[in-house]
């Protein structure tokens, strides 16, 4: 008698055709060896499917969505930013700037610098 072997997992997973399934059912009725093996693989299948689903860390999705928020600025703004960067001595090397460009971080750093600037504080009347 040929045992079902690999067909047993396919049987559990609903991956057999109607005719194959009917054959497997008939075989299982009379074959203790295959019934035992079916119980073995079913137990492993249940254990695997009982593993808790792990949530994606929220910071990962935040980072991913931040990346897609970046929209190229109009050419005249880009030219101004490039000129300003060059005047500060910043040089950008080759690579893929759009994929790792954290616009929000740069904005935050810029705002922190401006707020902390004594000239701006004087202008706003915040200076001691």
């Amino acid at each position: 008698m040929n045992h079902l072997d690999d067909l047993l997992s396919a049987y559990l997973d609903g991956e057999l055709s109607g005719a194959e399934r009917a054959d497997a059912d008939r075989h299982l009725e009379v074959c203790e060896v295959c019934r035992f093996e079916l119980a073995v693989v079913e137990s492993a299948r249940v254990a695997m499917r009982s593993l808790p689903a792990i949530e994606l860390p929220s910071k990962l999705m935040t980072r991913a969505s931040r990346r897609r928020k970046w929209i190229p600025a109009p050419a005249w703004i880009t030219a101004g930013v490039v000129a300003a960067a060059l005047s500060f001595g910043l040089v950008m090397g080759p690579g893929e700037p759009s994929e790792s460009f954290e616009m929000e971080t740069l904005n935050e750093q810029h705002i922190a610098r401006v707020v902390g600037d004594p000239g701006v504080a004087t202008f706003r009347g915040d200076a001691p």
Partner: protein
Amino acid sequence: MAEDPTPTWEEVARNHGRKIYNFAYRLTGNTDDAHDLVQEVLLRVKRGLESYTPQSFDGWLWRITRNAFLDEVRRRKRRPTTPLPEDDRGVGVPSPGPDEVLAAVRLSEEVQRALLELPYDFREAVVLCDVVGLSYDEIAEAVGVPVGTVRSRIHRGRKVLKERLR
């Protein structure tokens, strides 16, 4: 294979990010690797969608995921570790008692440990079937092997897994 309409990158990230993360975590037992893989896959998807031609989307996505995973493994050669960080444990499970939580965590750690002992081909097939929920046809397409091979790997993988769990 059925042709699926082209999804947007946001849809892929929203609908498949968690599955990719779980796939990677179950294969490696390492949250850092899983984290890196999701980012890498989403980047590849972003580039790939530009030239995507309608086909079986799951097959396409899991081919990318698998290739990214194997590239990472080759690149990093990091030893897998089993423990799950506290904040990732049992997420999404309705608050059972402490004993139940402990038993569930212990069991899932045992299963994870046994899973990591399986040969890679078996582990991959079992995870794609039981964790990701792909059909045998989809696994065959993603892995690039005949359906008969998928059937054999899943079955043998489960048998070895059960032996390790005794």
